[in-house]
């Protein structure tokens, strides 16, 4: 009846379950519901979600779009000041096209992320608080538009955290956020 290497005999399905095991099963169901409920609710009530529209895009078209955007923006010593609320970033071996960019706190920007060649990883953190970091996958063929609004000024550092070829460790860019 109770050995895992022998076939169970008799009506094993109707064997009673130890009370503590039943309680644990109940706790397990409850915890599973909480895990799902919170994650799902947070997509509605929360401020940090990896969610945004995606469009198909050819690398060449994206490059052109980004170039047009750069031309329209203002070049400053710090970096590019975008012409509006859109921020275009192109990931290539081994650079972040469109960075450095100068943004303001308290304004929501639409970040456009796409890769020119292979997969890259958009990994951002403020340079003085390394624990505040996020990571998004950047794929060729997809333009992902993820809104972001910064609340603290400072220099944000962008690294690539998807292996994109020998040399990927040098892929670095900056986002400068100024008091808005």
């Amino acid at each position: 009846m109770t050995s895992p290497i022998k076939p169970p005999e008799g009506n094993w399905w109707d064997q009673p379950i130890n009370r503590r095991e039943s309680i644990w099963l109940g706790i397990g169901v409850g915890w599973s519901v909480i895990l799902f409920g919170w994650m799902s609710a947070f997509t509605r009530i929360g401020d940090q979600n990896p969610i945004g529209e995606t469009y198909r895009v050819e690398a060449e078209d994206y490059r052109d779009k980004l170039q047009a955007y750069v031309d329209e923006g203002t070049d400053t010593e710090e970096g590019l000041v975008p012409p509006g609320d859109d921020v275009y970033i192109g990931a290539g071996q081994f650079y972040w096209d469109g960075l450095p960019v100068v943004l303001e706190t308290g304004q929501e920007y639409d970040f456009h992320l796409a890769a020119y060649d292979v997969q890259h990883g958009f990994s951002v953190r403020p340079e003085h608080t390394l624990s505040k970091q996020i990571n998004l996958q950047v794929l060729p063929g997809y333009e992902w538009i993820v809104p972001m609004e910064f609340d603290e000024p400072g220099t944000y550092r962008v690294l690539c955290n998807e292996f994109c070829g020998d040399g990927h460790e040098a892929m670095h860019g900056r986002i400068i956020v100024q008091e808005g």
Partner: protein
Amino acid sequence: MAETQHRHRLDVLGLFDNEYDSEGYRTCSVTGLEIHKSVENHVKLFGLTAVLFMVVGGFFAITVVGTRWEAIGLLSSSDYYIHLSMHAWSMLLFWIVFMEVAILYVGGPMVLGRKLPLTVLAKVGYAVMLVGALTIYYAIWTTSAPDQAPLLTAYVPLPSSPVFYAGALVFVLGVVVAALPFFVSIWQEKRANPGGTLPLVTFGAFITGIIAVEALLGGVVAFSSGLLWRLEIVTSLDAGWYRMWFWIVGHGTQQINLVAMIVVWYFLTHVVGGAEVVSEKVSRTAFILYLLFINMGAAHHLLVDPGISTGWRLWNTSYAFYGATFASLIHAFAIPAGIEAGRRKRGKGGGLFGWLTSAPWKNPMFAAPVIAIILFGFLGGITGVLMGQLQLNMAWHNTFATVGHFHSTVVLGTTITFMAVVYFVIRTMFLREFVSNRLASLQPFLYGGAMGVTALMMMYVGILYGVPRRTPEVVSNIPGTDFSLSAAEPLFVVFGLFAFVAIAGGALFVALAVGSLLFGKRIDPAGNGDLVSDGGSAVASQTMAPRDDLELADDPNDPVHAYEMRGTFVLCLLFLAAFVITYVLNWYLITQLWSIGA
């Protein structure tokens, strides 16, 4: 001597020369199972091969750690990616999958007391797997422009050598072939006993097998399309599409590891720890939940990918409302409860934890799985659920913390468990004493303890300092900028030191395994009594019929579910508390970020 007559002419070391009766069977003195030589010899073959691959993987762990610990800075970046690829494929695929085939043969035909059917296929599968593995090694080692080292993933459109994709395809097909004799033995058993129920271990192995085939078919799609693309037969291959198919095999194989490991936990805690199954219904239901839901876990890798709807991600990453997580919570109770109730029943445990403190901790075949259960649960399982939450994944994805998570699952969980299987095979199938019992007792603690700290450090540097995975530098120096993540350097010292201790623990395992096979004293087939739970000495086992003590388990008037499970309950509540605390902390960190997403 009689034994030499049985020896095959190729069996120079006498590793395949056990004595069998005229039908080819012998009775195992530890499990009481009737073992046919066809099963036993193939288990030995696959197990031994697995250990050899671990030697290769372990060697590359040294160079990988020596580079990631930038104070040492062993390799240049191009070498680094090649070494990391060698490490990943040797360990995650070759060591683990060769072991898994052996475990299927144990869980199926061996436990059922059958012959291994279609041994030709087992051998062909073995050969094809071996060819695939060597091809992959060759492709990785000769990586040259325009190709890049594949690492584990070979993400299209970053080109890897076509030889690599071909090797991966061959390896995957070899595994399918090697698994066929297992399925046939289950089918034969069902034909022979139409109304019968499979033993729990066999049932779990069968579920493992099905999940494996699903995963491997995903691998066939991923690697063959990668190959066609690389040979320019197909001109474009969507990066997102490849990721999805790759992770069906990439994550699917991890689910094989999980389920195979749990099967071994039930097996070894019973055989050497006296555990019993406290509820067949509950444990089997958990395996069914795995079958239904666990493959959805592949979505964990796509949580911060573009082009996939939020609903799809929520549904899949949660395995449909955490169906598979719930199944793991069930095993988390059922296995320790089996030890507790089983030992209490045999008078081996007073108080809350007497059943644990009196357990055979010096026996590595008991200690290793229990260490694996604890470390896998607390470090691997919890972090897996955390990083599998859509939003928390933004903090974990592709950081070093991810590496910490999966070393907690595939090393602290699967590898330590499989080490125990190797020990068990050495003692009960190769019938060899360990060259040193003291070192064998020590090894799981050394390896598990050091790897546990290593994995924790990986998680800390990943989450708290945002250190990326898969890169030879960035902590003390990012080429071309003055910025670096050097704040993480002190933790890297701890990481590096403990990682080298862990590697030493792995080397000790290999030395004990190989040393015992070559130099270990032969065990009399009736010996090994000391392995039987609470079975006393080897001498006792010769006077006592094998497994007498475990036969107690069958008394219908003394059902195991009626025994106390207080200790397990307390342990599970502790586990839940750790789960809740880390969950809240991770969410706290995420909500500190600027606002992201629509």
